[in-house]
Each structure stands twice: as C-alpha cells, then as structure tokens.
C-alpha cells in the first residue's frame, strides 16, 4: 500500500519505481560487500544539500566588485583567489573567472556532460544538464538567453565557454548601478546562481527592497 509508510523499507516495495528499486538494491549490494559505507553517502549528500551552494559564488563576486586587489587576483589566479575564501576541491580544482562587460557577455555550458563549478555554485540545476540547454547554448546562445529573459544589446558580444576539460568557469556578472557604498554582504544578495552561469544578470538593488 502506498500509504503504509511503515513498510517502505522492508517487504512491501510494490509502490517503488524501477529506478528506486534498482538504486536501493545497488546500495545494499555495495554495502554488503563492504565497498561503500552508507554513512559516507549520507555525509556526501548532506554536504551538497546543505553546505555548498551559490551563496559561495556570490561571496566571490561581491568581493570582486568591492575589492580591486581581489578582482586582480581572480583574473590572474582564480583557483587561489576563490580558495582563499574557503571554496575549493572537487569540481573546482582549476578555476577561471570570466568577467561580463558592456562589450562582452559570458555564458557557460558543458555540451558533453555536466561540468560545473561545484565549490562555488553547488550541484547544477536539471536544466543545465539537460539536452535543450547543452545542444543550443553553443549554437544559438542569444535565443537561449532570451528564454531566460536576458536580452542584451546587439553591440554586446556573446562569448560561450564549453567546459570540455577540468577547467571550471565562473561568470562575474556586471555590478549593477546605484550600488556604491553597499557592503559586500548586501552586494552578495544581488548575485544569483544564473548570473554566475551567464543565463542571468545580477539583480538591481531595487529588487531587494
């Protein structure tokens, strides 16, 4: 019975989908053989569900906006500059920061799989890993941007970065106007996940009021 929660983990699995059963069986085989520790899986999941996410990247961007020396460091050695804020490791081993300007808008994709800078953005959203985005981001990026509600001036060049190796790209969106004197913390609130992929822009300060 679907509503009989007491038996979910035991005998009655008739309500489970094929893939749920398959993953459950796989984990139990791996645990029984001693290859994986379920507690380690719990910690892995918790790390990416609770601890890592785009607030990390937003801190990097806000600091780059507020601190010219930090921005220069990001330009010359993004991996070290980002690691200095405590964001490092898996899927962020080799970082490059790409800055949006009035002349050039940057957009990041991985056409071959789902490469994404985990330490600064967390795990990628489903759309980033999906065929519609991966197929068209390189072919017709302006149309892709329009689907996200981003319309750029025709004079702005669009630069697409296909992450085909272990280098991970973080877009530094343009700092919105009328944000002079705002604290780094307040600036970070303007930085969305999509603005660091290039499928969005930083929020205007009015949007936060």
């Amino acid at each position: 019975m679907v509503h009989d929660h007491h038996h979910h983990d035991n005998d009655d699995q008739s309500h489970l989908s094929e893939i749920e059963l398959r993953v459950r069986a796989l984990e139990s085989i791996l645990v029984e053989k001693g290859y994986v520790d379920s507690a380690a899986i719990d910690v892995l999941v918790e790390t990416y569900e609770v601890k890592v996410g785009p607030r990390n990247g937003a801190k990097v961007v806000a600091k780059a906006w507020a601190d010219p020396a930090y921005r220069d460091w990001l330009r010359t050695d993004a991996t070290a500059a980002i690691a200095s804020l405590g964001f490092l490791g898996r899927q962020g081993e080799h970082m490059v920061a790409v800055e949006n300007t009035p002349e050039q808008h940057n957009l990041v994709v991985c056409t071959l799989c789902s490469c994404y800078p985990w330490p600064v953005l967390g795990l990628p959203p489903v759309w980033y890993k999906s065929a519609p985005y991966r197929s068209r981001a390189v072919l017709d990026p302006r149309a892709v941007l329009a689907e996200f509600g981003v319309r750029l001036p025709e004079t702005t060049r669009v630069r697409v970065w296909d992450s085909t190796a272990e280098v991970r790209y973080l877009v530094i969106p343009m700092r919105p106007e009328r944000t002079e004197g705002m604290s780094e913390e307040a600036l970070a609130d303007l930085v969305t996940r999509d603005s660091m992929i290039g499928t969005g822009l930083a929020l205007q300060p009015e949007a936060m009021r």
Partner: protein
Amino acid sequence: MNGAQDLGGMMGFGPIQMEQDEPWFHHEWERRAFGLTLAMGATGSWNLDMSRHARESLPPAEYLTSSYYEIWTKGVEKLLVAAGLVSAEELTRGRALMEPAPIKRVLKAEDVPAVLARGGPAERPIEQPARFAVGDRVRTRNMHPQGHTRLPRYARGKSGIVELVHSAHVFPDANAHGQGEQPQWLYTICFPGRELWGEQADPTVSVSIDAWESYLEPA
C-alpha cells in the same frame, strides 16, 4: 566517441525547462545514486574519465531518455561489472551472491570533507614546452575515435585562436581506457560562431572549447 552525450548543435529538444526554487534532489533515490557514485569513485577502482565514458557509451536512445541520475546509476553499474566488483547476475537479482573483490580503499564518513577538499586535480608536470602560445591560430583535428574524447563534433576541423594556455592536464582519451594519464598541454581555443555554424550564424557570437594539444595542429 560519437555518442548521444555530444549534444552541441543538435536541434529539436524543445524549450529549456527551468524550475523555480529547484531542490538539490527530486527523489530520495537520486540522493543515494549521487552519493554512491561519489563513494565508489573514492575507492580508486576507476577514474573520472572512465566514469564519463561509461555514461556516454550507453546506447543513444537510452541515454536521451534516461534522467541524469539514471545515467549515473547505469554508468556506475557498468563500471562495477567491468572492474569485477559486482557481477551482472548480482545486479539482476538485486543482492550479493559472490564474495567481495579486493578494493583499494573505502570512503569513511569522517574522511568525506578532506576527500572533497582535495578533489582530483588534473594538472600534471610535463617536460616538453607548450607547442602553442596565446594568439596562435590553430585548427582542430577532424577525428572520430571509437573511444572517449573531449573534442566535441561541432568543433572538429575548425579554425580558432588560442585564448588561454592552461598547463599540462591528464589526457582523457588515454586515461578513460586504462592507458595511463599521458598528460598534455591544455588550451582554451576560441572560434567565431560563423566558423562553427556557417554564414547565417550570429556574427557577435564566439564559442570556446578546452582542447588538449594533440587535438590541435597549426593553421
């Protein structure tokens, strides 16, 4: 390989489906599939390039109709069987039937933060100097290897400019097939949109890939 993973430039998949306030995982089984894939990766039984190749060598129709974590699950199953750690029959029956095979290490919960912080850097020392410099014009090779490659189809046989010279990185085309790391210089190569997509393409668009040295020749 020219598999279904190589999506750049394909058409007909429809609009991008965004989700407001998207959760990190949509189902409990996705959490477990994610975690067990990373935990098995940490055993050192295979490398990242082998993992990618296991996923992309799913039959195209299956790849394109499987969700992301279904692809991961099918990939890790293939790797487990290929490594002799789990038998196909065990997967079919859904339970362990054989004694476990020896394994290099098992990821413990308390070691997870350190293992994630260490990551898996791909940079390696190399003796020979870089063949290309920033600003050089290069042409990507027209090649269609049966095995793993990170040169997408849309960027083969195309002329571009070296924009960044990274350092020497593990070469996936070899590493995915147990042929060692064979590090090569890695470059960011930028192509005008029209070089990739023809005269109708938007002249304000350019696209880069990251390419290992053997993908490139002088142009």
